[in-house]
């Protein structure tokens, strides 16, 4: 009796994140990202020991930055795993912030209505991206490049026309502050959104059957279609998910800082892609993991933001990111080779 219980218990714990066998680790796309983050963290700790890098404040500082990127980076990584790319996030982020600022701030609509409208607007952009990509066969890079500029331009033009200003301020009710934009223990609310989404997205990609489909679509779309997977519908939903998550990040920002700017945030495009690639996601699809992207985002957070808490020259952060990206791309190939040749039954072969 007790034996069967323990048996069941191990069955349940075996497939959870990472596992502890070496084979499992090496096969995981997160392996490289994990080691990379550890190395970066150790180096930064060494140089930041006396500058509060290891304090809660230091941690909160780069985690706050990482959370905004992270909320967007995971769905961007989903699209990359499915063989697509979404760079319209750079425009959807300020568009959502402005939308909420204009509806609930300038026009004083109820907060819940403004948030709903913002999320719907973002879903609409995602739907357009998805439909254009699946219907026209134009590469998603070009499609989302077009929507990036279109949405960015529209945001500027509409803000100018509606409120005669490119910035808007928003004073949110307490409940909205508590959910989207306050600080707990020094961490912005977006950090907790990020952590919650990591769990949900991990479940989606690695545990639910749909996750399988995402990998299959990126691995070989034609075979996936033959296996009965609704390839186009899945892609459209992923584009919608990506835009909606971007809008969530935008909402968090505008509620947090009580104001929104309409300028397109081009850096967000690079941050999300860097986080994904450093996180072990394959650029041409079919391989990647949520945990890896989380490590990638944290690494980016440390280098981009945590650097302020170290003795390393702040100007070097871009250089470090560039070198890191290059190493990651080169290493990803190696890890992939290791992954494919690794079998837990070592002597068979």
């Amino acid at each position, binding site marked *: 009796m007790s034996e069967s219980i323990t048996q069941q218990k191990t*069955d349940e714990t*075996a*497939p959870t994140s990472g596992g502890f066998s070496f*084979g*499992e680790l090496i*096969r995981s796309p997160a392996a490289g990202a994990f080691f990379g983050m550890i190395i970066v963290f150790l180096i930064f700790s060494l140089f930041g020991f006396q500058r509060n890098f290891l304090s809660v404040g230091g941690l909160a500082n780069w985690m706050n930055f990482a959370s905004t990127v992270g909320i967007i980076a995971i769905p961007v990584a989903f699209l990359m795993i499915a063989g697509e790319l979404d760079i319209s996030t750079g425009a959807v982020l300020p568009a959502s912030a402005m939308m909420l600022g204009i509806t609930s701030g300038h026009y004083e609509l109820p907060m819940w209505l403004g948030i709903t409208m913002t999320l719907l607007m973002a879903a609409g952009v995602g739907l357009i991206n998805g439909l254009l990509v699946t219907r026209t066969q134009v590469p998603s890079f070009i499609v989302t490049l077009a929507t990036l500029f279109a949405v960015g331009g529209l945001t500027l033009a509409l803000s100018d026309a509606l409120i005669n200003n490119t910035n808007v301020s928003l004073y949110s009710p307490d409940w909205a502050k508590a959910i989207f934009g306050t600080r707990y223990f020094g961490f912005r609310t977006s950090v907790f959104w990020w952590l919650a989404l990591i769990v949900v997205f991990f*479940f989606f990609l690695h*545990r*639910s*059957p749909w*996750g*399988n*489909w995402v*990998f*299959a679509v990126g*691995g*070989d779309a*034609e*075979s*996936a*279609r*033959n*296996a*009965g*997977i609704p390839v186009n519908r899945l892609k459209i939903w992923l584009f919608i998910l990506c835009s909606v998550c971007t809008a969530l990040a935008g909402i968090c920002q505008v509620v947090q800082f009580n104001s929104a700017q309409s300028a397109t945030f081009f850096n967000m495009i690079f941050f999300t892609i860097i986080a994904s690639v450093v996180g072990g996601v*394959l650029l041409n699809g*079919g*391989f990647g993991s949520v945990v890896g992207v989380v490590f990638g985002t944290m690494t980016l957070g440390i280098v981009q933001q945590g650097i302020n808490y170290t003795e390393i020259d702040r100007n070097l952060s871009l250089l470090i990111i560039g070198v890191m990206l290059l190493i990651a791309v080169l290493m990803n190939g190696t890890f*992939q080779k290791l*992954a*494919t*040749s*690794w*079998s*837990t*039954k070592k002597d*068979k*072969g």
Partner: protein
Amino acid sequence: MSDKKPVLELRKVDKSFGPIDVLHEISLKVREGEVLCLLGDNGAGKSTLIKTLAGVHKPTRGEILMDGEPITFSGPREAQGRGIATVHQFGGTYPLMSVGRNFFMGMEPTKGFGPFRVFDREKANRIAVEEVQKMGITRITDGDRLVGGLSGGERQSLAIARAVYFGARVLILDEPTAALGVKQATHVLRIVNEAKRRGLAVVFITHQVMHALAVGDHFAVLIRGAIAADFRKGEKSREEITDLMAGGEDMASLEAQLETYMDDHEGHPPQLSTS
């Protein structure tokens, strides 16, 4: 010989894309427990024919019968639902996914309930390994292994085992041996025989006459979209078949030369480079 009942039958099927006629009056029968070899050179219309069988294309004229009943497939999905499985040249597998996940792609076993249904990895891995081993590939023992680490023949075998497991009645193999070495090809041919033994109707597309002769019961040679010859095992020699496929006499002498070469070199065909 023809007492086995046809599972799938084409009657005078034409297929044209706009003004271009690709298939012309194709009539074929695929029977249970038999291997039908479709032979043809590149561009003979083999892939269009497969796609018509698999429900991807609808015939322009003529009809498709399944178990004697006329049928039209709304798409590949319906054809699959009725037990027509296609395995493509590279196996249609995802190299960076595990054996278990590949095996159950699109039909994932789950445990749990409602929105918390999770992919049952252990069950998937166990069944996948069992089924592949049953087909005679004993080297696959770890369901977590990524398919990219398997050989081409093993991938083919995995895809065939998958089709068999999901109740395929007609197995369409699109050039399964074309990209494989001699030993790997033998593996796949053995598995084709195993599928046949289990009562599946197999459509084996190839341009390698040797491979066709090794497993085929029934042969059809396709030239420019029409069936140029339709015969049973033993009715034609390899030379005749090759000639038919090429549509000329030249091939026979070349084949003869090849054969003498191979006789002199322990059965190896001449190769430009050694691999």
